[in-house]
């Protein structure tokens, strides 16, 4: 949640948000731990951890195969896989761990409840799409796509890129941010009038937490799906 004072610090002339840095580091460690502990003792006959990991890889590959032709997936598989685990764990992190400094500034929360994070990932996806388009079609064919079906269309094409960037990033931000905000509001309600409100609010909080966990998974899925759609659009020449 971002409704308290924001703890920031300056480094090399850039402004950093402490909460984002710490949360991202936590997610980073969690992802590394996840893939490390599930990828030990790989065997032809998979055991529990390997089963899970292979299921996850199949799952994200399945998302990508939905829009990108199978022979062109290549490195996007790794991108989609990493993106999915990172976003999923980011979405879920804030639901279970929400720490604040004594002055009220949050220090650990969902990294994705900050638009800077989500727009960074959104931008990264669109840059990757541009890169993929250029590397597959060449500059001429790639940028020629913006002039189709007729030259004036370039206005709409560029505008579309911009809206893609915003909607991709802000969709996940909105869901996660509102989820965490509502959790905070329900908690304030719980502690506002003692035991009576606590009894009402705690089941509500649990229900909303469960729903948010579900939404977090859906949003990670949607983000990867839309990423693959945007990338696939750049891989083909428009008629």
């Amino acid at each position: 949640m971002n409704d308290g004072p924001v703890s920031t610090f300056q480094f090399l002339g850039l402004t950093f948000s402490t909460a984002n840095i710490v949360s991202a580091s936590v997610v980073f460690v969690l992802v590394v731990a996840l893939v490390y502990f599930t990828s030990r003792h790989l065997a032809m006959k998979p055991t529990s951890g390997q089963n899970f990991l292979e299921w996850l890889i199949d799952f994200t590959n399945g998302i990508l195969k939905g829009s990108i032709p199978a022979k062109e997936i290549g490195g996007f598989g790794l991108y989609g896989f990493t993106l999915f685990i990172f976003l999923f764990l980011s979405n879920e992190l804030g639901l279970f761990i929400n720490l604040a400094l004594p002055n009220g500034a949050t220090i650990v929360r969902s990294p994705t409840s900050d638009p800077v994070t989500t727009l960074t990932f959104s931008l990264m996806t669109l840059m990757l799409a541009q890169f993929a388009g250029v590397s597959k079609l060449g500059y001429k064919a790639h940028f020629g796509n913006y002039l189709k079906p007729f030259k004036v269309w370039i206005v709409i094409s560029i505008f579309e890129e911009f809206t893609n960037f915003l909607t991709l990033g802000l969709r996940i931000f909105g869901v996660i941010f509102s989820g965490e905000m509502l959790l905070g509001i329900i908690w304030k309600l719980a502690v506002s009038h003692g035991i009576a409100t606590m009894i009402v609010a705690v089941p509500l909080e649990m229900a909303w937490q469960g729903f948010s966990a579900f939404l977090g998974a859906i949003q990670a899925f949607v983000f990867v799906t839309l990423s693959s759609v945007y990338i696939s659009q750049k891989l083909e020449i428009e008629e």
Partner: protein
Amino acid sequence: MLSHLVIGSGLYFGDSIFYVVCFLLLMWIVKVLAWKPVTKMMQDRADKISNDIDSAENSRNEAADLVQKRQAALASSRSEAQTIVNDAKTNGQQQREQIVTQAQTDAQTLKQNAQKDIEQERQDALVNARNDVADLSIEIASKIIQRELKADDQKALIDSYIEGLGKQHES
């Protein structure tokens, strides 16, 4: 609430860079730790399964071939056995005939020999009897004429007599 996002009031662009670096690093770690080995393992498994399917197909074909060969061998051995039995039958038949013929010839020979022997015996007996009769006649004659006769002198006479006797007897 989102006041910090308003342009100019300290938007933390640094985070974006941090996230990008973090994500790229994470992608690399995931690639080294899990992605490469696991996808390789999955590919290996897929290859192994397709190989197994192929080799199973081959084994099945080989087994079918083998069955065909075995059946052919069985049929040929059966016909061979038939030939052997037939040969044996023919041989047996031939041998039987040979033995029977041999036995018949032997019996014929034996019979002829026996007949020859009998003839011989008869001749001998006849000669003996002739000699005895000659001696007896001479003795009788010498008794009758009371004089010593030389057997040899008279022999021709007696022989001719007996010849005539034999002829008389035979006819």
